């Protein structure tokens, strides 16, 4: 067969070449990063990746302007996608392998793969309370961000007028201070001799809050409520912004039309504003729930040993006990549950609102 004819035929389908080479490079990067191959085989993979790139450049040079235009997006994507393959995908693979590895002894820092399902048993039984707490706390915090964030976004979108952007800026500005310092400041505010506790004491509400399980022995700091409060605070903007974006798109005339047709204000709100804000509420819920479920800073600074979340356990197992396999199994379970939620979300809502 005439080699030029072969090239011409390949070059006639440049989008396949572009996509194919990008795929090949991504898989090659994961293979190298996650140690699917080692020794001489990794050299083979590297050469293969190099050949793919050279082939791509050749097709671009041989083909005309139209071919180059078709190939352009793949060229632009390649560096970023390669980076993500190497440092996002390959690590996830390493994590899965690690979660099924076993340690020879307590001081074996390079566990080897052995289908060690026991790690998952440990993750799901020994750390069940932490998992349940994480999802529980994150769920409550998500609900609270909706309750606080919706009115805020609503007022900014519909009453903000020309001050909209300034108000939006005010919502975001506090979150330009360091995350840890913000959380420590909540520690100051909720401390036993701090202002909130003394106000509650003076109002005689301590008993009420204790019966609601918000306070514990007259303390506010180091309780589940403090941890949930911290999570709510720290991730609030992730709820306000998406809700604002979806409210801002609402045509105010829709509400006027409903009122003209004798709808009550509440009915108009319930049947027009809320449904149209739902995409923002869904996106916001995902954006709040995910970081909240994986967080360990709030539990560390505002909680007690009985309020540890799964993030605390992962961090402790990984960095302090150096028990990478069990830490990886816990990370995988967390990632798995959240990824399913994300995939269900994107199936219905797409990826646009998650920015």
């Amino acid at each position, binding site marked *: 067969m005439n080699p030029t004819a072969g090239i011409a035929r390949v070059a006639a389908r440049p989008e396949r070449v572009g996509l194919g080479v990008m795929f090949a490079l991504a898989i090659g990067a994961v293979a190298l990063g996650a140690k699917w191959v080692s020794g001489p085989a990794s050299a083979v993979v590297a050469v293969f990746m190099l050949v793919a790139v050279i082939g791509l450049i050749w097709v671009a040079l041989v083909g005309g302007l139209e071919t180059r235009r078709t190939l352009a997006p793949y060229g632009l994507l390649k560096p970023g996608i390669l980076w993500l393959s190497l440092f996002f995908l390959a690590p996830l693979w390493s994590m899965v392998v690690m979660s099924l590895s076993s340690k020879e002894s307590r001081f074996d820092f390079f566990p080897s793969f052995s289908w060690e399902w026991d790690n998952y048993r440990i993750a799901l039984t020994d750390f069940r309370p932490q998992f349940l707490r994480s999802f529980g706390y994150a769920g409550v915090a998500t609900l609270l961000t909706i309750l606080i964030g919706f009115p805020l976004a609503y007022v900014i979108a519909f009453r903000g007028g020309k001050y909209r952007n300034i108000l939006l*800026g005010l919502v975001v500005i506090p979150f330009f201070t360091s995350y840890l310092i913000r959380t420590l400041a909540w520690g100051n505010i909720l401390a036993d001799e701090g202002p909130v506790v003394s106000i509650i004491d003076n109002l005689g509400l301590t008993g009420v809050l204790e019966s609601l399980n918000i306070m514990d022995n007259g303390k506010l700091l180091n309780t589940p409520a403090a941890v949930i409060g911290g999570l709510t605070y720290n991730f609030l903007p992730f709820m306000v912004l998406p809700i604002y974006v979806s409210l801002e798109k609402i045509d105010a005339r829709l509400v006027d039309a409903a009122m003209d047709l004798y709808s009550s204000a509440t009915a108009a709100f319930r049947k027009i504003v809320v449904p149209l804000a739902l995409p923002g509420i869904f996106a916001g819920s995902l954006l709040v729930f995910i970081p909240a479920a994986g967080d360990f*800073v709030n539990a560390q600074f505002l909680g007690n040993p009985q309020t540890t979340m799964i993030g605390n356990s992962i961090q402790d197992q990984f960095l302090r006990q150096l028990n990478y396999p069990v830490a990886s199994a816990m990370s995988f379970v967390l990632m798995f549950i*959240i990824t399913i939620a994300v995939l269900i979300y994107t199936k219905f809502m797409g990826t646009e609102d998650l920015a």
Partner: protein
Amino acid sequence: MTAFSRRQRFGQRVINGIAGLGLFYIFLPILVIVLFSFNAPKGKFNIKWQGFTLDNWANPFAQEQLTSALWVSLRIALISTFCATILGSLIALALSRYKFKGSGGINLFLVLPLTSPEIVLGSSLATLFINRGVSFGYVTVIIAHIMFQISFVAVTVRARIRGFDWTLEQAAMDLGATPSRAFWKITFPLILPGILAAALLSFALSIDDFIITFFNAGSLVTFPLQIFGASRVAIPPQINVLATMLLIASVSLMVAGTVLGNRRQRKLAGN
């Protein structure tokens, strides 16, 4: 009718009130941070209000470890933001400029790092480095930061240049400009504000990142790591001073960006 609108007005006032409380809630810790930067704590912990002093502001860099950690963070943020802005903007350009096979998959792939818990990103990357025998330090932290910034920049820039009129570039080429000249003279200046905004935000993300950095820093100490380590031993008021400075710096940058953007828009509208 009047009763109805009175009730309605009452409802509006309630909503405004809730929103006002919300803003107060958002600013409360910030007020505490700024206030306690003027505190003269007696012990090692800057928790209880003891008295007003300007000493902390007179010597903001008195805590050497804290200051050097801040420099480490700034250096990392500069390098990682530079790299991630380029890589991410290229992706955004590809996604918004061209229609191509596989763009849906790429969109999903880009969102995944943003919707993965930081602790998973951090611990899995650390696993890779451990497996590969890479020693932790500057390089690993920068790699980690670029990783989570790329997606962020790509998504932000894509959102900012949505609706950009790509026929402008075509027009330039019809008038005889080469494709690269058309890009650098027409497209690039118009999408630059979006890119800069994304770069600023991702710079802030990098400086403030704690969880991912915690797993990949080894013995390197960034600003958030220093605060975390110090929080168990001592919380000097200088932390509040530096935090307030960072806040002022980022707010001024944001305001400057908005003002410049508005002026630019007015200029474009004027022409």
